[in-house]
């Protein structure tokens, strides 16, 4: 939808999340008291959204699979948490400590993004996926075996207790910042270069796109936001344990991106919120051995959605029944063809060589007037 120059589709996610944040913060400041579990859920949702959007940058737009996203988050969580622990005695548990630790976490995670981005320049596809997986495991193992004084070892690192009442507002503001950066990156020249690399790296290189620069930049951005999500996690959870950031967590983020549709940021946001809610709601319904059903559900989501979206045999089916077409049908029922003027309809179709010739010949005939014999019958 367009209102003048303003494209609603481009800003709908800012508007929805912005209004939500505004309403909730006004309610908080006017003295409404939210349930602690609700606050916790909101914080988790914000963290998941940041993670899903940042992973979508690599998986959906760069077209490389990262299985170490939880590793970047782990680095951010530990480093940010540690900075907060060191700063808290001097600056207190205030917003300043939070901001500095957020910056620190993002910076260190971005550094890791550089480290992983360098192999990414030489490797593609399966190999890169394994390298990112290996990175995640290495990070987990390093923090797990750290000494008690540095990062708490297996017990984990305890972080200062920030006031729960306001944390979710900061989390949602960070979601908005993430969206602003990621969407502007994608809709700019940089983003088009990144998608060109995804579609055909060699062709992109041939047209003069600096593949090295854009691949590294994308990895760094993605890692930095994962780091921010990690710092938020450490503040939301009061404690950081490396065991949480394993392979399974990376897969969970991947499920969000795939469920939302690869390369679809709004989809990733909805899927991230949905999966986070499922994560808190399902364990109350499924107890004991049934808890594994949740993992089975995620596995099936991955398989079914990827096959449905990518199988070459299903292409015609997809084109006929895709969600966009169905929504259009519901919103604009029975488009009456008599109202559509022939002329208008023609401009929707990009003329191929042959149809272009036809159009030209029709124009020539019309120009040459009703009497063909005057010019000898032939053009």
């Amino acid at each position: 939808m367009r209102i003048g120059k303003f494209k609603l589709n481009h800003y709908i996610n800012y508007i929805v999340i912005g209004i939500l944040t505004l309403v909730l913060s006004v309610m908080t400041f006017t003295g409404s008291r939210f349930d602690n579990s609700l606050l916790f859920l909101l914080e988790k949702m914000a963290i998941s959204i940041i993670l899903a959007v940042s992973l979508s940058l690599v998986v959906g737009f760069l077209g490389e699979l990262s299985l170490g996203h939880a590793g970047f988050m782990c680095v951010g969580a530990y480093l940010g948490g540690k900075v907060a622990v060191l700063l808290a005695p001097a600056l207190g548990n205030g917003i300043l400590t939070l901001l500095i630790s957020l910056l620190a976490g993002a910076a260190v995670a971005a550094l890791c993004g550089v480290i992983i981005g360098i192999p990414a320049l030489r490797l593609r596809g399966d190999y890169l996926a394994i390298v990112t997986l290996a990175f995640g495991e290495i990070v987990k193992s390093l923090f797990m075996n750290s000494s008690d004084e540095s990062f708490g070892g297996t017990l984990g690192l305890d972080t200062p207790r920030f006031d729960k009442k306001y944390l979710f507002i900061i989390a949602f503001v960070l979601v908005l910042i993430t969206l602003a950066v990621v969407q502007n990156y994608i809709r700019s020249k940089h983003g088009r270069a990144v998608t060109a690399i995804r579609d055909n790296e060699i062709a992109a290189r041939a047209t003069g796109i600096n593949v090295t620069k854009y691949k590294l930049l994308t990895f760094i951005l993605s890692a930095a936001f994962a780091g921010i999500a990690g710092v938020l996690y450490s503040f939301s959870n009061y404690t950081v344990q490396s065991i949480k950031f394993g392979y399974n967590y990376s897969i969970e983020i991947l499920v969000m991106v795939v469920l939302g549709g690869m390369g679809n940021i709004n989809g990733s946001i909805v899927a991230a919120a949905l999966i986070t809610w499922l994560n808190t709601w399902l364990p109350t319904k499924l107890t004991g051995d049934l808890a594994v059903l949740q993992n089975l559900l995620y596995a099936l989501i991955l398989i079914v959605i990827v096959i449905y979206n990518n199988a070459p045999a299903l292409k015609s089916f997809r084109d006929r029944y895709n969600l966009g077409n169905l929504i259009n049908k519901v919103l604009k029922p029975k488009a009456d063809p008599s109202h559509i003027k022939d002329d208008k309809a023609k401009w929707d179709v990009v003329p191929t060589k042959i149809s272009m010739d036809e159009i030209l010949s029709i124009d020539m005939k019309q120009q040459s007037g009703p009497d063909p014999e005057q010019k000898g019958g032939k053009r």
Partner: protein
Amino acid sequence: MEEILSTLINGLSLGGIYAMIALGYTMVYGIAKMLNFAHGDIIMVGGYLIYVFMATKNPLIAILLAVVGCVILGVTIEKIAYKPLRGASPLAVLITAIGVSYMLQSLAQIIFGSATQMVTVYEFGAVKLMGATVQISSLVTLGVTVAVMLALTLFVKFTRLGRAMIAVSEDRDAAQLMGINVNGIITITFAIGSALAALAGLFYLLKAPAVSGTMGAMPGIKAFTAAVIGGIGSIPGAMLGGILLGMVECISYKITAIAPYTDAIEFSILILILLVRPTGFLGKKRREKV
């Protein structure tokens, strides 16, 4: 001295297991051009099948049934999950494979519970070798792996089917034009890979008699590391990489200072090798064309 010898033999036997899994990876990767993430979990299924069929009290029957079960499972997975995606982007295939791996793990936990089950397949006992105590099962593992590697190499080099496999891995379209049934070859490759995974599951049970839903995940990833180190697509390479990785792991476990970091060390080796020599020790270099 005895300790060094027993560490070396343990390393060789663990390396044999990794090599066995890596052989499956390397064959599937070479021919279907996809990383079968679920390969590690077929080891786990093999372990559970042996656990179930040990009710017959006959290890040989249990092993045979487990191999058959794994072959059926591997081929079914290929038909249902991977075949519809032939011709789709590699990313889609990779994500589906991860989904399948995740599904097998959670199904195993639903069926058998999340607790570890104990099962003893066969007690081989131990022998004294130059003063060191050596488990006979380690020697069996190593022997069977070497035999399987030799058999596979000969099979690929000298049979019609094996040469058809090489043809498919070189150029799928050209192979199809030469009258080779590409889909059939890929199915056979998955069957062989799954059978090898079932044997790897058996060797795991001989080494430590416990099965659990996630037992295959880590060995699967490490065996892929081994396949990459040796050069993916190369059968002797898988053997070399497997033995190398097994050695590194066992030696690293013996040194107290770095023992907790063993996994990290192995994965760092993977990253280093991929950076320095992405085709591994024995792999062929492929040029990417537009």
